[in-house]
């Protein structure tokens, strides 16, 4: 009888409290959104299931939890805390990215830069709310709308915040269809949303080959701390455009990136153990994440409108919203908002140019913030 009682006291049912139930509901919501609504399923499904796994209550000291040494989850989580998974994801992302629309219209790169202003505004807001500089920098990078970059920088500066920051970053990426369109409509007029972009010029293979090399040298010399992200990103892209290592490029853009995404999502989800995750700081991070994302969207749109004051050939300001690096969600949203106003307006290709420059921009920002806070 005593043995049975002891067993029952070790079960999750006995050890659970309201925090576990709350987190399990969050995980279930993520799974629901990914399957029923198809919101970023590649991310939300592994994270959602990871949240369920991470919030099964257990008796501590058995080497089961993600924060316990020698547990299997702890080893898998090493890829997050060391920054390996984000770097691998960037390799695959590079091998999937087509820069031809960006090369055809380089001024769109400025929109990718402008959308990073949300990061620096949030940095100030987080400091004002009492976060330490390293924590504030990690929270601010959510404004880049780039999950792997957020995880990478947080792993380096504030590893204790990886769970909430990753969940906030990916949640807002999944919520792009809800967050971005109202901001885009608020900041643009109907006639601006109907601006057509001319077809991009054809880009030669040599230009495509030069870009990853020039991009790497310029960006990484400027912010060497971004090497782990941009190094693999541009390498992946060079493999793709070179055409001589198709097998490697294909593996990087499929099997490798998929494997990293699975473990990244799953372990980040599992890292949201209720006792670690449900704190006042997490609520602050979620609030600041929403601010960061909204300001990033708005600053991209407003910068495009400012550019239009000086340009003969106007840019559709909706494209500024794609300057955040949520690939390809924000580009798709820009395209859809443009098409609602004019079904013959095809903005997707141009928005992808802003999106890919946003990826570069947010990785540079991560490098800059890491450099500022290295001490």
């Amino acid at each position, binding site marked *: 009888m005593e043995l049975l009682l002891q067993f029952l006291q070790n079960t999750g049912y006995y050890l659970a409290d309201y925090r576990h139930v709350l987190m399990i509901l969050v995980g279930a919501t993520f799974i629901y959104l990914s399957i029923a609504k198809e919101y970023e399923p590649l991310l939300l499904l592994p994270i959602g299931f990871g949240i369920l796994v991470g919030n099964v209550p257990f008796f501590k000291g058995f080497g089961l939890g993600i924060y316990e040494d020698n547990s299997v989850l702890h080893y898998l989580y090493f890829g997050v805390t060391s920054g390996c998974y984000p770097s691998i994801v960037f390799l695959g992302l590079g091998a999937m990215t087509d820069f031809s629309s960006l090369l055809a219209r380089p001024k769109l790169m400025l929109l990718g830069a402008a959308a990073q202003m949300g990061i620096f505004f949030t940095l100030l807001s987080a400091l004002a709310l*009492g976060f330490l500089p390293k924590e504030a920098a990690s929270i601010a990078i959510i404004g880049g709308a780039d999950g792997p970059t957020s995880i990478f920088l947080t792993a380096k500066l504030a590893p204790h915040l990886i769970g909430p920051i990753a969940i906030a970053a990916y949640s807002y990426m999944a919520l792009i269809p809800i967050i971005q369109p109202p901001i885009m409509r608020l900041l643009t007029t109907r006639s601006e949303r109907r601006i057509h972009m001319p077809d991009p010029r054809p880009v030669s293979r040599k230009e495509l080959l030069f870009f990853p090399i020039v991009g790497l040298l310029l960006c990484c010399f400027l912010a060497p701390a971004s090497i782990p992200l941009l190094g693999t990103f541009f390498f992946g892209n060079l493999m793709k455009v070179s055409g001589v290592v198709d097998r490697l490029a294909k593996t990087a853009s499929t099997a490798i990136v998929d494997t990293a995404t699975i473990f990244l999502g799953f372990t980040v989800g599992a890292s949201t153990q209720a006792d670690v995750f449900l704190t006042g700081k997490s609520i602050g991070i979620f609030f600041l994440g929403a601010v960061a994302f909204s300001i990033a969207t708005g600053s991209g749109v407003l910068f495009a409108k400012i550019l239009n004051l000086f340009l003969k050939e106007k840019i559709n300001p909706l494209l500024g919203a794609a300057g955040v690096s949520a690939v390809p969600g924000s580009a798709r949203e820009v395209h859809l908002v443009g098409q609602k106003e004019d079904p013959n307006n095809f903005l997707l290709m141009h928005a992808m140019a802003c999106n890919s420059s946003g990826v570069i921009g947010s990785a540079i*920002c991560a490098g800059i913030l890491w450099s500022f806070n290295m001490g």
Partner: protein
Amino acid sequence: MYGLDAIDAHNGWAMAFAGACIVLTGLAVLSFIISQFPKFVGLFEKKAQPAPTPPPEPQAQPPADIQAPLEISRAADVYGPLILALGEEFKLEALHALFREQNLPHPHITIRNFWNAGLLQQTETGAFVWTANPS
């Protein structure tokens, strides 16, 4: 510490301003450099010695007046004998392959025009028959 005091104490203004300037400048420079790529590539290509290329082999050209196969009767005169060589019944893939083999222009448009004009008709077995006699 909270508010503006916290921002001042942690050097927040300088971090935000410098960070924003660095990323804007970096991407503006990259944008300028890539806008110069076409000129740079052009320079590269001028310097490169063009490899001697063998003269192109003359290809069998269809009669000039069926380059645009809009006149259906003329096209039927030219294509009809070729189609009959496929047999009484044939598949569209075979017809398309034949046109390509003979280097005849606009195979898709021509086949569609024949079909619309009733010159090509589908049988119950899914094959096609040619219903016009060659002149």
